[in-house]
């Protein structure tokens, strides 16, 4: 399994043809206390770069863009009651949704951990 990152601070773990998407720890730290996560419905077709989820903090609402094209297969039901998981464990328990990839080539344009960390260092 490998993990990729975007400049918009999403991460994606790819296992076979399924990608699990979340926002990075850096991003959750920037947003502050997460109060609500609007999640996509399973079965929804999505294109790379679409805003498919919204993460709310008290005074901000941030779109989350899917890093890959495909179909949403699941979203993280635990966030309905515990949006704070995105704060406490952004890059594991706080995942947002899973996408069944149709264009695996899209991953090539994403960053690995080291590249992302370097990128964040420039912000």
């Amino acid at each position, binding site marked *: 399994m490998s993990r990729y990152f975007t400049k918009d601070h999403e991460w994606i773990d790819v296992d076979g043809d399924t990608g699990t998407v979340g926002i990075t720890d850096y991003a959750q730290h920037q947003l502050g206390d997460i109060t609500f996560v609007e999640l996509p419905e399973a079965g929804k077709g999505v294109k790379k770069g679409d805003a498919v989820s919204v993460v709310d903090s*008290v*005074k901000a609402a941030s779109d989350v863009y899917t890093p890959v094209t495909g179909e949403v297969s699941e979203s993280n039901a635990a966030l309905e009651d515990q949006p704070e998981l995105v704060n406490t464990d952004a890059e594991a328990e706080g995942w947002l949704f899973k996408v069944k990839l149709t264009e695996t080539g899209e991953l090539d344009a994403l960053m690995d951990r080291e590249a992302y960390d370097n990128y964040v260092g420039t912000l």
Partner: protein
Amino acid sequence: MRYLPLTETDRAEMLAAVGAGAIDDLFVDVPKDLLLGEPIEGLPLHASEMAVERHMSRLAGQNLSAGEAPFFIGAGAYRHHVPATVDHLIQRGEFLTAYTPYQPEIAQGTLQVLFEFQTQVARLFGTDIANASMYDGSTACWEAVQMADRITRRDRVVLSGGLHPHYVSTIRTMARFTRDEIDSRVPVLDAEPDDAALIEAISDETGSVVVQYPDILGRVPDLAAISDAAHAKGALLIVVVTEPVALGLIEAPGKLGADIVVGEGQSLGVGLSFGGPYLGLFGCREKFVRQMPGRVCGETVDADGKRGFVLTLSTREQHIRREKATSNICTNSGLCALAFSIHMTLLGGGGLARLARLNHARARKLVDRLERIEGVSCLNHAYFNEVTIILPQDARETVRVLADRGVLAGVSLGRLYPDANELHRGLLVTATETVSDEDIETFASALEGVLA
């Protein structure tokens, strides 16, 4: 000038302090040729309090106020007695001259009032939750339609023929721009509302069904049946209440299956005021909370663990979500919500129920008397405090003549539906607790005179 505290000395010293030689140095960014050198022509100069009061009182005197005449007008705005306590309390400066409670530590008064108001509205409507108010009933109704669009992802709207024509117009106007498809109808002069035709119009593509309760002709639709039909097709039922006092007597819409209930709250505490400011009431199911428009107040705790209240869920709103907001609404009707809430607190549930019965009793008395006039009949099988009377002639002219004789007799359907000739003998009359036996007799006698 009595409202301006700076003296000429202050002004001179302050100009010097900011490094300006003259006041217009501060207006340096305004194009020179457009900067006005003196007071705008064509307008009067300042006036004393006494002079202004005289001018305005003269204008007020050109109106016939409701209290000066037997008064039977309703159609979406109702004259009720407002206890003196209400107006006294809303004029406390801490309520009257406060802003939207953006700094909750020093706005707990307004916030707790809003929390109580939301609870009152939700209980009155039988909904899970309510917001902190909208502009008025008609705009709340349009916002409800938009909210249903978002929830159902459908944009077809079915409007009952019993929905207030101004509300229908408001929805139609807005729908021209949002491209919602509106299916509306003109009411039919029948003793019962046309629930069957409404149910017939609901399809798998219908996002919402909008029903007024009691309806514009004073009839009472069967909400449970309409709700079942709407839900069977995946549509939401929006119920509109223009006379909330009715809910002291008839069942709450939320208990009958309504998904969103909106209303005009003017009846309680607010007064007629020629049409505004009024008070939009908005309640809905809890699961729709994040699609709800408008401000909401929520309970929380402060740093010491004390209960307190804040404006919350603001990520739905325009100041954060901007073009993706659930509505562009910013200002609500805070002071009117306070007036409503105080009046409701004075009444309590028991008082509201008694007030409702009293209204209904006055209306029964009015109907009984009017029906004794030859050629005059009552349309409705059921009504609350408002009812449609059928006259033997065009009601518009009748209303004008009665007004000349000092009676404010009601609203002719011709005024509300100028294009529907078949309705023109219809007259909407309302009797609230403010109507006396003498008023009824004066009205009836005058009408007999007109019809004779």
